[in-house]
């Protein structure tokens, strides 16, 4: 099998067997990026030199036997993770000139494991968007159909994996930004429990919702990435004080007797027939594997999108205040005075979607509106979490659609923010509730992949990965590739 078609687990085994070196693997992916990424615009920065020198070091580790499972494996990182010495733009003109002098904890963890930083992937500006169209570096294109969006905000990571430009990537998920692009690009992505993965050095969008997570071709690969990226971090006070665990340990456990909650009102609304059929088949498959389907009800989820679009912009409006042109980042030319410096640096440095959300958030926090918006949204958020928790007392996992349909056309929702925001209908609930959730491919609608979402209990990522792995063991949706499709 060609190097670029292999999963992380396969590449790791190959490196261990010395079938190929890390330098060969790394060069293979760099060459694919160089020759193909002009089609997808999945990367903002390709770390060619850094990757090759890291590969040399990884080969030494493999030679002297101090390698770990990810040593020598190239990984792409969403351009939201601060990477020492490598431009970290967050998809914004504001940080086009920003080279962090420090590593995010996630990048530091990958570096320690000996993984190779292949490059930094495209994203919606400051992770605000669901299509990777708001990037200062231009839109990213879906490898299954380049007229379609790859989803977002981690669209660059999803597209890079789907196009086999990288075997795996990191993403972040504030309202669905890992799961929705995973669904659109036919890959596997996990948003861990809030607090599982350190947010230190991960540029903040909405602090109480942001969570980094793995994206790859398979659940098994996601588990390998989770083992490296997660864990308590004293630099992040909201990081969970949990012992790190081996997320790969339970993959092969049978899911016989597993109780799966199905919320039927979820896929009745807004969901097209093709998607519903795929979902039925996937559920049948899970039943064949021994799972029991249980009907549940999540009526409060209908408040999730409006709740999310108060809380996330409110926090964002405050988080983005630091981008003021004073200490780093974009600064306007020849400011006349302080007010001019602020106004023009931010007007010129930030894009429309970011400005829209700053305005919404500022309004929601204003004196006299706080109780009506932010205060109320936080109360509803608690009710939504309570509802999920009470359902998860009776079932192990909640299963449903990830998105309302397959990837949409580039530009089709640019003038319709509400319809863009409603894309998040199925995903924002898990963020508001802080629960782990993942998306796995379950078929195609109009020749574009679609995903199924699994939501689990707090800190039960292992169970989600186990279910996903068992499903992938029995199906081959995750093995489909746009390359095969294009060849056919």
């Amino acid at each position: 099998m060609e190097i670029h078609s292999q999963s992380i687990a396969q590449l790791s085994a190959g490196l261990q067997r010395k079938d190929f070196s890390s330098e060969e693997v790394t060069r293979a992916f760099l060459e694919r990026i160089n020759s193909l990424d002009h089609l997808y615009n999945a990367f903002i920065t390709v770390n060619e030199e850094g990757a090759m020198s890291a590969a040399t070091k990884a080969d030494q580790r493999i030679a002297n036997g101090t390698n770990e499972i990810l040593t020598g494996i190239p990984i792409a990182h969403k351009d939201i993770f601060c990477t020492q010495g490598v431009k970290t733009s967050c998809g914004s003109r504001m940080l086009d000139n920003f080279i962090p002098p420090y590593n995010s904890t996630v990048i530091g963890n990958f570096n320690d494991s000996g993984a190779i930083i292949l490059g930094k992937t495209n994203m919606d500006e400051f992770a605000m968007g669901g299509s990777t169209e708001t990037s200062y570096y231009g839109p990213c294109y879906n490898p299954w159909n380049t007229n379609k969006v790859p989803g977002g905000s981690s669209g660059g990571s999803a597209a890079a994996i789907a196009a086999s430009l990288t075997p795996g990537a990191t993403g972040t998920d504030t309202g669905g930004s890992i799961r929705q692009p995973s669904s659109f690009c036919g890959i596997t992505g996990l948003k861990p429990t809030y607090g599982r993965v350190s947010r230190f050095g991960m540029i903040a969008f909405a602090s109480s919702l942001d969570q980094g997570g793995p994206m790859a071709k398979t659940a098994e690969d996601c588990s390998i990435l989770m083992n490296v990226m997660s864990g308590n971090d004293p630099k992040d006070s909201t990081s969970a004080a949990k012992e790190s665990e081996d997320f790969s340990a339970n993959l092969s456990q049978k899911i016989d007797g597993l109780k799966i909650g199905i919320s039927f009102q979820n896929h009745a609304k807004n969901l097209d027939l093709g998607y519903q059929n795929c979902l039925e088949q996937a559920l049948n498959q899970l039943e064949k594997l021994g799972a029991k389907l249980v009907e549940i009800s999540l009526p409060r989820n209908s408040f999730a999108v409006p709740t999310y679009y108060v809380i996330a912009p409110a926090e964002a409006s405050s988080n983005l205040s630091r981008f003021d042109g004073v200490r780093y980042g974009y600064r306007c030319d020849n400011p006349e005075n302080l007010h001019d410096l602020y106004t023009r640096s931010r007007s010129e440095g930030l894009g429309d979607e970011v400005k829209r959300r700053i305005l919404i958030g500022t309004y929601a926090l204003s004196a006299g509106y706080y109780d009506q918006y932010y205060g109320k949204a936080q109360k509803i958020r608690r009710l939504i979490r309570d509802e999920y928790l009470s359902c998860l007392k009776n079932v192990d996992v909640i299963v449903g659609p990830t998105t309302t349909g397959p990837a949409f056309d580039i530009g089709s929702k640019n003038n319709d923010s509400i319809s863009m925001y409603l894309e998040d209908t199925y995903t924002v609930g898990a963020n508001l509730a802080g629960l782990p959730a993942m998306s796995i491919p379950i078929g195609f609608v109009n020749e574009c992949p679609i995903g199924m979402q699994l939501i689990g209990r707090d800190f039960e990522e292992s169970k989600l990965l186990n279910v996903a792995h068992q499903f992938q063991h029995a199906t081959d949706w995750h093995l489909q590739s746009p390359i095969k499709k294009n060849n056919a």
Partner: protein
Amino acid sequence: MGLEVHLQLATSSKIFSGSSTAFGGAPNSQACYIDLAMPGTLPVFNELALRCAVMFGLGIDAEINKISVFDRKNYFYPDLPKGYQISQLHHPIIGRGTFDLFLGDKTIYQIGITRAHLEEDAGKSVHSHFDKESGIDLNRAGIPLLEIVTDPDFRSSAQVISYLKALHILVTYLGISDGNMAEGSMRCDVNISLRKQGVDSLGTRTEIKNINSFRFIERAISFEINRQIDILEDGGEIIQETRLYDSELDETRSMRSKEIANDYRYFPEPDLLPIHITDDYISKIRNSMPELPLAKRSRFIETYDITEYDADVLISSREIADYYEEVVTTCMNSKLAANWIQTELLAKLNKSEQSISESPVSAKKLGLLLSKIVDETISGKIAKQVFSEIWSTGEDPLLLIEKRNLKQMDDSSEIESIVQTVIDQNADQVKQYLSANEQKRKKLLGYFVGQIMKSSNGKANPKAVNQILSDKLSEQP
């Protein structure tokens, strides 16, 4: 009047980062990625700041909130790197308490403490040095502050000053702040409003910000009160605003009115968890608390039998109080120690602008010196000479007394011979003495003693001299 005091807490690192809090570093040499609000960086709460706040709460017997929450106070300013200040709005760490003031007339006056909350300091804009541009120094950004808010209980600037002095003493006793006003460790905003006699509600208030010395506080208050009186008597209205005191012009003037328009959009800081504290945590701190100034004051008056005035001077800092107690233990005379520390030691320190911890004469040495007065080895006068000398040389007082042979002459035969010589040399005066009345005798006795002390170089034990002299005189034919 009501006060808001910003107290800089004596932690060695900042409230949300590991940067140093030392005063006077080169600009931006003590500002790390977190203080600079670099993208993706996160605050981590310094537990020592919490400890300081709890100690303060225990020190004034205030409510200590088991759950307190950090909030973001959002506004744009170049010296505020994140674009928000992390503070506590709705759930401060310290709730209601009272502060007892001992005023000069021996009455106790209680000041209500509304609340005290933790927050981070901002940086500093530097306008000199740069042509048409401003510099930002972020060394101060993130230094832990405890903002202590009082009820509007002050009726005079004298009360304000005595509160600030007592607060200064308390926080330095607790070791939670150096309370240094000149370096900005204790900054005070004064809220002033007037009301006519007999009227219940206070008028519109103005706030005077950041006045950094007792003298300026007094002058700013007096200026502002007079300004408000003039306006009200002319039938005008006070505008609620923040005013700055200009010490050069000795006046307050309005700051830009943007303050009023500012909407800080407070909301709970999502990067930090609420602070939960347990009874156990509080009681551990309670057990480690030093003796508080007021308790020490009462103890000194009771145990050492000194006046309230002396006690106030001696407890004015923990160092002076400790010094005093060491002198007392060494010399075993609490009143003598109290007098000497006030009249000799503190006077000399004042003159040389030194603090008691820099005193050239240690408490041990002063105690030993005084013990020699107590056991009558030397006289008070000699002791003052010795003190002067060891002040400049740092010598040991006992060795010096020995070396210079400054011990009182106790040997009666030696004294006797001096007395005899003086009697012999002053035959006329002795004659006068013998025929004189009581009053005249006293005068002459003083003359003889003076002569005797002179020829003994002041060392003769005055008691022995008196005894021997009167014996000898009565033996005269």
